[in-house]
């Protein structure tokens, strides 16, 4: 079940989950205490103080420096972040991913008695939307963040954050697949999320309704594509099987 990366494990700790019946040998990641995140306490202090400066100063060294000042550090302390402004981006990604597990109204299946519990697909969509809305305050600066994430030295972290986010959403939605769809689900969700996020940076519509429509279309595409792929696979399987049987009926030893 899910959880490849340590960051994934880190987040699992926040989730209230049923205790396993036999807890002598904890197996699932959520039965373990959360490992420390990628940021030390001092880094967290400076980075969290930097966040309020992003809307004004963007994802820049100035923001980092102002955050350090607010945390009663000095300009020289920004040397704590060898990757400079990218650390703010990374911090934003990690904390917003962690915050997803707090959306109880989406995660709890029986919120209203009698109401039909939302399916996994609906939960995934709702979680993606919540994550996108978490970018609302910095969306006018988000292209700076995307530029930083696309720098070659930062790409491994960016990609791993994206895949952790995708994994996190599927996990929180309650996906328990153990076949190859585990990978395709995460890959397609990552694609949908990344493209919708990019769309959102240029969206000026009220309440991001255009982004919402865009996201819905991407999910629909993905569903249609999934259906088509499934149908094609079924047809290929049937044809191959039939062909084999025809050969057997002609006496070929296969």
């Amino acid at each position, binding site marked *: 079940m899910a959880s490849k990366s340590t960051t994934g494990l880190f987040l699992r700790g926040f989730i209230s989950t049923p205790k396993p019946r036999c807890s002598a040998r904890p197996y699932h990641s959520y039965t373990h205490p959360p490992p420390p995140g990628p940021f*030390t306490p*001092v880094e967290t202090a400076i980075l969290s103080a930097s966040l309020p400066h992003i809307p004004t100063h963007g994802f820049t*060294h*100035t923001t980092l*420096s*102002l955050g*350090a*000042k607010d*945390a*009663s*550090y*000095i*300009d*020289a*302390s*920004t*040397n*704590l*972040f*060898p990757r400079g402004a990218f650390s703010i981006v990374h911090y934003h990604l990690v904390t917003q991913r962690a915050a997803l597990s707090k959306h109880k109204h989406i995660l709890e299946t029986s919120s209203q008695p009698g109401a039909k519990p939302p399916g996994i697909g609906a939960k995934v969509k709702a979680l993606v939307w919540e994550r996108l809305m978490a970018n609302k305050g910095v969306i006018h600066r988000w292209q700076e963040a995307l530029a930083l994430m696309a720098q070659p030295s930062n790409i491994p972290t960016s990609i791993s954050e994206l895949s952790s986010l995708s994994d996190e959403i599927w996990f929180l939605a309650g996906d328990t697949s153990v076949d190859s769809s585990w990978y395709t689900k995460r890959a397609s969700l990552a694609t949908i999320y990344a493209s919708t996020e990019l769309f959102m940076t240029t969206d000026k519509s009220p309440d991001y309704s255009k982004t919402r429509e865009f996201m819905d279309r991407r999910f629909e595409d993905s569903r249609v594509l999934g259906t088509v792929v499934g149908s094609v696979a079924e047809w290929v399987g049937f044809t191959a099987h039939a062909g084999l049987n025809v050969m057997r009926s002609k006496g070929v030893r296969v």
Partner: protein
Amino acid sequence: MAMAMASKPAIRSFLRSTKFPCPYASVTARHFAHTPFRAESRPNAQPTNHERTTHFGFETVAEAEKEARVAGVFSNVATSYDTMNDFMSLGIHRLWKDYFVRSINPGSSSSSPPSSGWKMLDIAGGTGDIAFRLLDHCTNINNSPSSTITISDINPDMLAEGRKRSLSTSYAHSPRLSFLLANAEDLHTVPSNSIDLYTVAFGIRNFTNKDAALREAYRVLKPGGLFACLEFSGVTNPLLDAVYKRWSFGAIPLIGQLVAGDRASYQYLVESIEEFPKQEEFRNMIQTAGFVVPGKGWEDLTAGIAAIHKGIKPVEKS
């Protein structure tokens, strides 16, 4: 004391006969790659059981003696310092130093109007090559003409050389530049919590008590202040390391003997590099002194021949 780069002692032989007495006169000539042997037959300075000892290259000497012997090495090389560094490192030490200063980004300020600038302390900075770079970066890149630096060195000859060189820079006689003759293990003239940036480039290797120097750095730095150290370190790639060891233990003392007629000083140089703690160990020493380190704590330069170590003095939670 400053950067004991590979080179300094070369000039010694020229000077020996003229100006300075050589502290090595009694040391027997050292031979190619025979350090274990030499360690057994310690030439002089047999420490008694009561004395605290330290390394001088591969030799074990009394702590009290190391300072004097290191002083001897640097007194003799002060005037030819950079020339010899260039000769030995093929100019790469300049790239390291430039990168070191650039990565620190001294003088940066987020407040407007700019704050009072950074207060910097360059330890073992005798000839000033790090200090002038830091000031240049403050002035030209970060527009911080109010940043100041104090060049500190234990060795008056190195400081005199720095003073002389400062005359040819725009910082001559300016209040931005001051000199301090002090032992880095005891900076009592520098008030606690007063420094933004403490740098030591190619110097800490020669300190008798490195932990004491780190504690002193921690004391003088402001909360949030930066400790930055550029020093020779361990080559990470085993193959490269073999080549590098071959070069440093074989060629460097040989060049010293041929060019300067002084094998012993060159031998000290390469041995002191070898004796200096490797990346992880030195990082742990920095952490033990109370600093928090960024990331893994160091950055390798040229495959680890040198490394930049940094530490931030954390702000006490009130």
